[in-house]
């Protein structure tokens, strides 16, 4: 079981959380003219990286708020958690890189 630091409540057991997969996916603006392929990219295509990953978690059994984490998907070590709307402590270019 992971120990996850909710940025609002502090460290809690993984079983209090709900996973939300890849973070920082913005719904495309001006989407009237978007092709099916572009919609597929937004809805389905994901990084699913081996290594560092910026992902979402929701503290469902606690404060109920969504936040983001940077986690290594090989060791499952959580490098940082941060509030929604904040910048990730690692950039997209480091994603998938292993520690």
């Amino acid at each position, binding site marked *: 079981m992971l120990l996850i630091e909710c940025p609002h409540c502090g460290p809690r057991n993984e079983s209090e959380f709900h996973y939300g997969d890849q973070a920082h996916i913005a719904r495309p603006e001006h989407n009237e003219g978007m092709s099916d392929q572009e919609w597929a990219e937004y809805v389905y295509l*994901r990084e699913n990286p*081996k290594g560092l990953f910026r992902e979402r978690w929701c503290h469902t059994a606690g404060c109920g708020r969504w936040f983001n984490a940077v986690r290594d998907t090989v060791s499952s070590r959580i490098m940082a958690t941060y509030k929604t709307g904040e910048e990730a402590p690692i950039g997209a270019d480091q994603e998938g890189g292993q520690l």
Partner: protein
Amino acid sequence: MRYSAFSLLRNTLSHHKNWPQMWDNPDPLPEYDVIIIGGGGHGLATAYYLASQHGITNVAVLEKAWIGGGNTGRNTTIVRSNYLWDESAKLYETALKLWENLSQELNYNVMFSQRGVMNLCHNVHDVRETKRRVNANRLNGIDSEFLDAQQVKEFCPAIDLRGGGRYPVMGASLQRRGGTARHDAVAWGYARGAAKRGVHIIQNCPVTGFDIEGGVIKGVQTAKGAIKAKRVGMVVAGHSSVLANMAGFKLPLHCRPLQALVSEPVKPAIDCVVMSNAVHAYISQSDKGELVIGAGTDAYCSYGQRGSMHNTEGTLAAICEMFPQFRRMKMLRAWGGIVDTCPDASPIIGHTPVKGLYINCGWGTGGFKATPGSGFVFADTIANERPHPLAEPFALSRFSTGYLIGEHGAAGVAH
């Protein structure tokens, strides 16, 4: 050498010292007609059918570590074909028919045992869903029946229908032609059959990059140097996103750890496969006597090949409620594999955005049962450079056309 009672006798007389090696370990050639990346069951089956069905024998299977060491060697070996939708039913039933003759075809005992697979229902909703699936199966010509609680007890006397009060058994679907097979033997049997026809099985050879020119595949970069090929099939299960990334495209996959465990060996106690999708538990007994138990997936993306303890605890709790006599058994080993699941719980087979690079992935928690069928249609796809008719609905493009094949009910997590 053909395996037979005679070859067994002859090798017994020489104290089993002269059995020939099943396949060689050749160094890679600079170029092949077809390269298959990934020496799991699906990759090896693809190579085997390329050689046996299409006469394409200048083929290399490039395996990162050792063949069958991925999910092929980690799964709970349940084989069945009772999927809901027509597209899946046809694909999985094609595989099941191939299973029924596989030991003969490969001259290798894959220990396919059609002992019957039951999927339990624990509430009224499960009963409705299951009946619907049984009816859909029958319309597709797949053997499938609905058992009421009493019939479940007759088929598998070890079950406690009360399920400890938490998981009462209200009925089940039963596919009598379903069962289990020996996972390693499947990899080895296909490898031996392919190697005999000239395919190179190259182990300890991870693919580290692709050579692509103008959107067309030219070859791959590996730990053993560059290897050229005009056609490349990528069958790497849990590493599909990683390789797709190297080739410059993304997949709709989510990697999760899925766990299994086995108990100490005991005398025969359960002679069928029992699965419960609702409680993420499934159980059968191996020929060695171990209870083989499958657990659920962890919630998050992982490449760690191990899962967390609270998952196995949950599964074992459910198993103990349904089979109280297993309560005092000790577990011997537990392990995990990385499963590549699609949003619709169906596989992806066919073209990629790179010309000449084909993909077969997304089998997630349930691809072992499909191994022969998957290899069969994928070999045909690569040989003819167009999707096999059974594979066509499973194209990557279904995520933009919206033609998803939702099999969460039939696939769930339990297999």
